């Protein structure tokens, strides 16, 4: 069975054709600059047979992008997709597990638009385009927030009036759930610990967004992101935790222009805000490894925030089996892993510097033999996780 996975961004559309249950990637690609014209032309980067092709194509919306992608796939001499699998960043309280698309699902999905105004509307547009253009291909939706639906009430509530929380559907939803769940399952296999017995902290540290997830008995019990992806760690351009009074001050200073503040906190803060130069934390790394006190303040502040949350999440998931590093920074920057794990012996965490510097394969255990907690580096694969989810939904339906 071939599943075409879509990962829809506000102006991009990533795709990957995966054959299941073999878990073999057939092709992949990304449509970029969808929507209004930008300084560079819209294009599709298509990867097939170890080759990468750049195709310029006008794509006014996600429906348009889907048509172009489908054409490219049809010309690639590969079997047609049997299923479309979609990644949805937000399922609100409506979706706690993957679902097959039908009219009712679409109606409920419409109600989640305001919860993820950047991501969900184009994803819905794409789902509708798929139904229209390929009505016979079933579609399955996998939600990032679903993995976090197990976060207990006391951790998902905010301390503002309940009435407002209920009216505006405010609660901690958590994000990056598909990635966290994928690496948790991989860790469970690697450590030979049943998922239901696994306690862990999963560190999804991307070059853009980042979140930590506390896992108890294989289930998410907390996530650093909250109602929105703004809360928590310092990210490339998102501020993470800030004093709510600062948001109010900024609103006053900007004559209550909410959209400007939204943009400021989402697009101009984080590492970019701190450094004033670059949104990529890798640009703040020193030329050689130095100790924490000697680091520049951007990197110090970035690491400090992660260490605070790591301490919190080890505490609530205690006793823990493993800390997992994943996504671009988590997988590729050993120095950041080192800084995070340094001086964590109280929690039984000790890194092996040599193993950390020489990752040869994924998953890799980089903990010292003295460490009571395993430190793993696992390459995330959200698309594969979505494909697996799609497959089990269909299998469940058939059996």
């Amino acid at each position: 069975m071939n599943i075409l996975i879509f990962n829809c961004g506000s102006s991009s559309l990533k795709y990957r054709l995966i054959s299941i249950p073999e878990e073999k990637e057939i092709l992949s690609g990304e449509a970029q600059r969808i929507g209004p014209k930008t300084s560079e032309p819209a294009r599709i980067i298509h990867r097939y047979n170890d080759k990468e092709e750049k195709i310029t194509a006008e794509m006014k919306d996600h429906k348009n992008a889907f048509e172009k992608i489908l054409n490219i796939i049809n010309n690639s001499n590969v079997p047609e997709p049997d299923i479309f699998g979609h990644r949805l960043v937000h399922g609100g309280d409506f979706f706690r597990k993957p679902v097959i698309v039908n009219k009712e699902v679409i109606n409920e999905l419409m109600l989640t638009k305001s919860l993820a105004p950047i991501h969900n509307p184009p994803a819905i547009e794409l789902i509708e385009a798929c139904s229209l253009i390929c009505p016979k291909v079933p579609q399955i939706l996998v939600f990032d927030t679903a993995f976090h639906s197990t976060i207990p009430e006391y951790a998902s509530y905010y301390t503002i009036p309940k009435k407002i929380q209920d009216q505006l559907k405010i609660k901690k939803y958590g994000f990056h759930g598909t990635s966290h769940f994928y690496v948790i399952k991989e860790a469970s296999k690697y450590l030979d610990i049943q998922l239901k017995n696994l306690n862990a902290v999963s560190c999804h540290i991307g070059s853009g967004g980042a979140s930590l997830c506390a896992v108890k008995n294989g289930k998410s019990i907390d996530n650093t992101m909250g109602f929105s992806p703004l809360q928590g760690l310092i990210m490339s351009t998102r501020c993470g935790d800030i004093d709510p009074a600062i948001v109010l001050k900024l609103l006053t200073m900007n004559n209550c222009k909410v959209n400007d503040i939204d943009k400021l906190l989402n697009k101009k803060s984080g590492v970019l805000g701190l450094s004033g130069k670059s949104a990529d934390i890798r640009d703040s790394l020193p030329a050689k490894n130095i100790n924490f006190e000697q680091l520049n303040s951007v990197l110090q502040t970035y690491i400090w925030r992660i260490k605070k949350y790591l301490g919190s999440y080890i505490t609530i998931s205690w006793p823990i089996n493993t800390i997992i590093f994943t996504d671009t920074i988590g997988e590729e920057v050993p120095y950041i892993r080192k800084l995070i794990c340094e001086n964590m012996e109280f929690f039984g965490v000790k890194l092996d510097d040599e193993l950390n510097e020489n990752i040869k394969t994924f998953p890799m255990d980089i903990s010292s033999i003295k460490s009571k907690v395993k430190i793993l580096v696992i390459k995330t694969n959200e698309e594969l996780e979505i494909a697996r989810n799609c497959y089990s939904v269909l299998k469940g339906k058939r059996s």
Partner: protein
Amino acid sequence: MKSMIFYPKKLTIEYHYLDNNNLIYINMISTKNYRKKTNNLYSILDQIFEYHKKNKIETVFDNILIHSIYSGKEFNTSIVKINNFILRKLKKMLYDSPIQINLILELIKACQKKFNKKPIYIIFETAFFNYLPVYESSYALDVNLKNNISLTRTGYNGLFHEQAMDLVDNESSKSNVKLISICLNKNPEITGVINKKPIFVTSGSTPMEGLPGERRSGRLDPGIIIKICQEYKWGPEKINDLLLNESGIFGLVNKNISLKDLYEKNDKSRDYELAKKIFEYQILLECGAAAGVMNGVDYIVFSGLYYYLGKLISKHIFKNSLFHNNNLKIKYLSKKLDEIIIEKLNNRFN
């Protein structure tokens, strides 16, 4: 030694008359009224102390102490004697904390006039936090904004934390003692202290951030404020009121109750139980965070108005936790703010 301590707040000035540590008399001035009627704090003080005289309420004192939350970066010690140099420094702080500092300056002026030659001291809460490391005190916001608004994290219960630190320091022979100090006031606060220096604090650039309080929200996803603005079309003032006066425990149980009530009223309703769980969970998270950046903890000290609730809370949250070990000592500091202030004054004389 007899002292008069003034606690200037947003709408009131509370004053406590003490004979050493014994509280003899307590009263309150409404600043709202004085501003409306006379705009002269001196005449209010005059009227009050005439009334005391008439009614034979003894308020003869040796010194005056004025409690200030905010110290700015100007003052690094928690107690200073007022003189012209200090007044000039205080005036410099007007820009950062106009309402509070203005009231303090007015109060000093009135006290100088009314109680001629009595020594006046000012006690700062935030001075304790002046050496918080930059990586703890910074927010990840546009560097250019820092020129326009105060964007530095600080703590607001420095006097309690300092006492907790002294308590541990007297007891432990270990150098580099790691302390988690939990101040259970109306707006609770946790700080992590290592080697007598705070390196972690839950409050933010204002007391709005941090642990949930009796009526304040505490930590919040910034996206929630944006959502409220967009959906309800509320302005910053209304949201400020929501987050400072209608949130926290009050927002969860929809009743005006104190932290003490929450724990001692024995109300088993779902709202009360959930509010307790939320509060305790936030404390556990912050203790974990403090331990995370200090690489452990030797002491946990509960202090503040509701220090005694620490026994129950620690029983709930530390049981079977990482903190449940023989090396950790949990202490309770029963001193009131008045006592701490008088002790500070005495230490200064010694």
